[in-house]
């Protein structure tokens, strides 16, 4: 028990730096360590905590807050969150400073121009991947399609559309 904080800092601090490509990439390792190695929670609890972190707003990486809470209470939650945010955040800060300091350089413009089409391809890719996970029925695909057109072509506040979609889900229509 008394090594919990060290384990928390070590685990999430290292996962922070390893999470290249986003937080989801280190989920399997997070699961392995918190369930099998440190016995902070059961398999079922991990799955439920994952569902809770998905249901809450904000970045889904906040699952670490919940694992930290289970491992060592509120202090554990805080330590786990900071351990996950700070290493990768500092690295990103350094890269941003470097990137900004070269904002007039030719290579900066070249990278910006070149990466734009790839970024758009990746946006479609994540839309595709998420729709495979989120849309379980043809009605869900129809909802996605209608929402896409509304967001794309109209100025209707997306929150209104999301509210209607929530109601549609609540009444079991998708």
């Amino acid at each position, binding site marked *: 028990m008394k090594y919990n904080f060290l384990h928390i800092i070590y685990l999430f601090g290292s996962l922070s730096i390893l999470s290249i490509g986003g937080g989801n990439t280190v989920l399997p390792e997070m699961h392995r360590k918190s369930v099998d190695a440190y016995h902070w929670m059961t398999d079922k609890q991990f799955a439920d905590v994952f569902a809770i972190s998905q249901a809450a707003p904000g970045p889904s990486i906040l699952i670490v807050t919940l694992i930290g809470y289970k491992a060592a209470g509120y202090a554990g939650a805080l330590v786990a969150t900071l351990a996950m945010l700070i290493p990768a955040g500092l690295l990103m800060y350094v890269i941003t400073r470097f990137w900004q300091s070269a904002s007039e350089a030719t290579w900066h413009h070249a990278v910006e121009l070149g*990466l734009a089409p790839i*970024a758009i391809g990746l946006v479609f890719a994540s839309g595709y991947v998420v729709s495979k996970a989120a849309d379980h029925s043809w009605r869900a695909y129809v909802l*996605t399609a209608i929402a896409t057109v509304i967001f794309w072509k109209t100025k209707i506040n997306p929150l209104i559309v999301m509210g209607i979609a929530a109601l549609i889900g609540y009444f079991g229509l998708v």
Partner: protein
Amino acid sequence: MSETVPPIDAPKVVRDKISLWELGKTFNDIALMSFGGGLSAWSRRIIVEVKGWMDDEEFLSALTLCRVMPGANQVNLAVYVGTRFRGIAGAIATVFGLCLVPVLIALGLAVAYFHYNAVPDVEKILKGMAAAAVGLTLSMGLKTGAKFLKDPIALVFGVLAFLGAGLLRMPLLLVLGTLAPLAIWWGYRKYLATRKKA
């Protein structure tokens, strides 16, 4: 280096200092609006369309940078925006804004779960919202695509990135490692060409 090249088309973006409170508040709003998903699409909508803090080109390249770097993409984007406008203090403000309320909500739900074994019954609501949130992501692709995929070569890069990372589920680093050098070379040629014209 004595001659400075005039910008090709001066972006109509905010260049003033933005207060730390405004930065934190904005990312708090983005986090709360994204209940149900579509965090990047919400970020673009607020940062580019509503606030005008960046143009699409900068936003897209920043987003790619955030994907390559370790860390959650949205936390990285918060660091990028905060750093760009207010340095380290700005980065702390945006990350704090993005995470504080969601952490409290998630923690509240976790306490209910571990002590009372209550799991929030939001599954059905989230199903509807997740389907619509995908629409938000796709509309972001369509809006920016109309602007940046006009060039046939750009379109090829976009389609290949989609095929690799989407349909084939190839690792991101492999997709970017292959496409990015070629795309940056293409971007370099294109930048030189537009500069000559200007």
